[in-house]
């Protein structure tokens, strides 16, 4: 996994930094933050689609990581452990927001009924011309599409596609089985293929 500071300080191992953090060295934690802040922020942004919320949630995640760093035993890699915290914080936030809003946006049953597992996605009949598709619009379309996934489906597709994490790492980060991860990936992909076909075919 490529990180921001792995180039800057390649000689300091992640595990060593974690050990220093466990001894109360906040400078070592700063180093870990530098390594993962962009990825964590990007991941959360893709989940919540709001820069300020993503910023706050990323901060919350790192604070939580610092407070519970003593509980990290090194059974998994640090970033898997960190992503578990990030996902818990973000999914909890999304769930609370959903409860407050009273929406049914993340109703998985509705999604599963809407998608035939063996279906072939249908291309949009009137695709937007490539020239008119600016980056901001693409971003907006992606945000809209991801917003239609449940938090768990968002998490797996983003960890797989943008973080290039392995199934077992995603499973560890989300606290579920590998089969569940693969199943969620299947439905998340199908849904996004349906929603974004005109975008990726024209960009």
């Amino acid at each position, binding site marked *: 996994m490529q990180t921001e500071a792995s180039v800057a300080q390649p000689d300091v191992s992640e595990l060593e930094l974690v050990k220093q953090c466990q001894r109360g060295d906040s400078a070592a*934690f700063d180093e870990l933050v530098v390594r993962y802040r*962009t990825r964590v922020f990007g991941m959360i942004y893709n989940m919540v689609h709001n820069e300020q919320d993503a*910023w706050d949630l990323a901060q919350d995640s790192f604070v939580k990581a610092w407070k519970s760093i003593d509980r990290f035993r090194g059974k998994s890699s640090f970033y898997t452990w960190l992503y578990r915290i990030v996902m818990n914080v973000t999914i909890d936030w999304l769930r609370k927001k959903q409860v407050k809003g009273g929406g049914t946006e993340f109703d998985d049953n509705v999604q599963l009924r809407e998608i035939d597992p063996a279906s072939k*996605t249908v291309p949009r009949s009137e695709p937007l011309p490539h020239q008119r598709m600016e980056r901001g619009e693409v971003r907006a379309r992606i945000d809209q599409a991801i917003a239609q996934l449940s938090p768990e489906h968002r998490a797996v597709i983003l960890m797989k596609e943008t973080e290039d994490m392995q199934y077992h790492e995603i499973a560890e980060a989300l606290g579920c089985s590998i089969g569940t991860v693969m199943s969620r990936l299947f439905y998340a992909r199908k849904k996004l*293929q349906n929603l974004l076909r005109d975008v990726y075919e024209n960009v």
Partner: protein
Amino acid sequence: MKTFEEKWTAWIDDQLTGRELEEFLASLPDRSAAEAEKQSAKQVGSLLREQAMALSNADFFSHQLRERLDRENAPMRSEADAIQTGWWTIRRLLWGGITSLAVFAICTVVVFREKTPSSRSQYLTQILGAQVDPTVSPNATISMFEKKDDHVTVLWVDGLQSLPPEYAAK
């Protein structure tokens, strides 16, 4: 036993190999449509990667986080300091008290010892400290009778062949 969804996902991610892959491909009703789907899924993945949101003001992010951690750690630290200070005060008071008592006791003993007048005369001390030679005076006995209130001391010496040479009265 993997479900269809699991096999499909593994195939999209090029994780199916060997016999498993052959069996899966053989089970597909329309191979070319499936390949198109696989391509489509990979395009979605590329699109998501290309549009990944960058963190602007990354340094400010770290700075803000550091401040927040300092702020949140501060109450915990001061509480711990307060507890430590409390214990230090109690221990200090305890040790202070014990030391004062010890000093007082030592001073009292010294003062009282100095103030107590010696009730023994120089002669008496010499007599009592004298060695009576048992070969010269085998039956010698020395007895002392003392009445401090009247400042009277009677020394009864019996059986001496001669007085010790140190005796001051000689």
